[in-house]
């Protein structure tokens, strides 16, 4: 079933795109990641122009994070104050990311930059997750902890202007989550990812937020920042394809619900191990793409 994408300017098989959305939704429902890191590269492999893939994947993530945020809100798993600060940082980061995106586009290095960022981020996170899940599953032996982990990071404790974040159980400077949010926002614009796979570990290990509010707050940030990013892409790069986003969403909202049900029956460590493997496969595929001589060494950009 072919369908024409008006902004991308080419035809795709609608069922393939819906299925892709479904698989990504399944993962996000099972594991709680947005799945943008899978959608964008797969869309690019499929032949969608990178700019359109990044922009439309962002729109899709907004949709998949809505239901998750609502669920966490009912469980009081969202720290709005912390969320507000991170979102403010995210919007600044998204604006900066937009400028970087255009600069790289004009230099002709956007594709390479996207690929390198993906390889570095996904590679390191995949390895960390595989290690952690492997230890839990007793594939690797647990190392005895040398010293108890510190809850408070000394650098962050040094920052001025402390605020109280009750739900997170923190008394820290808002600058730390602001900067963290900025990094997340930049990644959203450049890579078409929600950034949850970076934000969640950073919130736990760097900020020291209490675990009950981490996922909900991260999702709240993703919701707002991806919505803002869609607006940035729509008004500057003009590469949001609403038909592509709708097809992806149709698959992913259903996949997410099925995934959430399925997740209750499977060991979470097993799911994380699975996700780690998927992430590593994507990273390796992108790394090969960078190092291999491409079939076509010329590319064209309209002026």
């Amino acid at each position, binding site marked *: 079933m072919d369908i*024409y994408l008006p902004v991308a300017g080419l035809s795709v098989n609608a069922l393939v795109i819906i299925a892709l959305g479904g698989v990504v939704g399944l993962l996000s429902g099972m594991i709680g990641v947005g799945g943008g890191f899978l959608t964008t590269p797969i869309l690019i492999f499929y032949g969608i122009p990178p700019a359109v893939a990044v922009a439309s994947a962002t729109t899709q993530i907004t949709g998949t994070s809505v239901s998750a945020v609502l669920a966490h809100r009912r469980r009081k798993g969202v720290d709005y104050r912390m969320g507000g600060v991170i979102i403010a940082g995210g919007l600044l980061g998204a604006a900066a990311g937009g400028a970087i995106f255009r600069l790289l586009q004009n230099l002709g*290095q956007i594709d390479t930059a996207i690929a390198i960022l993906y390889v570095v981020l996904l590679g390191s996170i995949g390895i960390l997750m595989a290690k952690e899940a492997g230890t839990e599953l007793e594939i690797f032996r647990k190392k005895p902890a040398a010293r108890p982990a510190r809850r408070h990071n000394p650098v962050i404790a040094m920052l001025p202007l402390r605020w109280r974040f009750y739900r997170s159980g923190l008394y820290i400077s808002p600058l730390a989550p602001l900067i963290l949010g900025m990094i997340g926002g930049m990644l959203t614009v450049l890579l078409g990812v929600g950034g949850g796979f970076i934000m969640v570990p950073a919130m736990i290990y760097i900020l020291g937020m209490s675990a009950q509010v981490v996922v909900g707050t991260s999702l709240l940030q993703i919701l707002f920042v991806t919505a803002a990013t*869609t607006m940035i892409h729509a*008004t500057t790069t003009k590469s949001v394809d609403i038909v592509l986003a709708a097809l992806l*969403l149709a698959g992913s909202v259903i996949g997410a619900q099925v995934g959430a049900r399925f997740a209750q029956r499977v060991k979470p460590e097993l799911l994380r191990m699975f996700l780690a493997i998927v992430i590593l496969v994507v990273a390796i595929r992108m790394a090969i793409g960078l190092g291999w001589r491409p079939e076509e060494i010329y590319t064209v950009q309209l002026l």
Partner: protein
Amino acid sequence: MRAARALFVALLAPLAIGATEPKLVPDVSQSRIEIRYSFTGAELLLFGAIIYPGGRAPREGTDIAVVLKGPVQPLVAREKQKVAGIWMNVESARFRSAPSFYAVASSRPLSKLVDERTSAIYELGLNNLQLSPGTGAPLDVQRRFEAGLIDLMRRHQLYFEDPDGVKISEGVLYRARISIPARVPVGDYTAETFLIQDGRVIAGAVREVRIEKLGFERFVATAAERWSFAYGLTAVSLSLLLGWAGSAMFRRG
């Protein structure tokens, strides 16, 4: 486009004076190609008749070449090189007038029909496109980029040459099929037909073909371009609505 057409007419004007030469009556199967929701490409038929003055019998060695050309556009071509183990864009070249689409079909290979000078004048063949390179780069570098650009466009099926795509029956009627891929750019195209005898272009005619998005596809593309803020808001609301509807539907079920 108009200037190109005027030039074209001017080039052929001397030919029209003597009524001893054959004339062309060309047509196209569609003067408008519409891109709609399930557009996967189209096929354009260029056909017509060769009229010989005084009912003279058709002569052997009469050939036809047809060219379908899209609007020209300025672009930059980039070339990847291996830098520190990574293939990345290094050199680039600008072209001020690369056609967005170029297809040529002829009844025999072009090199056998016309000499280099003639094919350069009429822009016949992929090696004769007037790309107007915009840099002062050395000629061999320019050539390399031109070849790279043409090769890329061929892979995307936006440029092609079909050396025996034109069929002539009884020396009078001719037809050629040109296939148009799904990722064809929109705009005003020209379909040119050339009648060639003894290495000379003795008659020519132009028809215009318009390729455009219609209906919903046109509305979306225009909205994304012109009302980008409202378009963005619509995209965000659509995704919020679909996401919320999905979770609401499953909670009940």
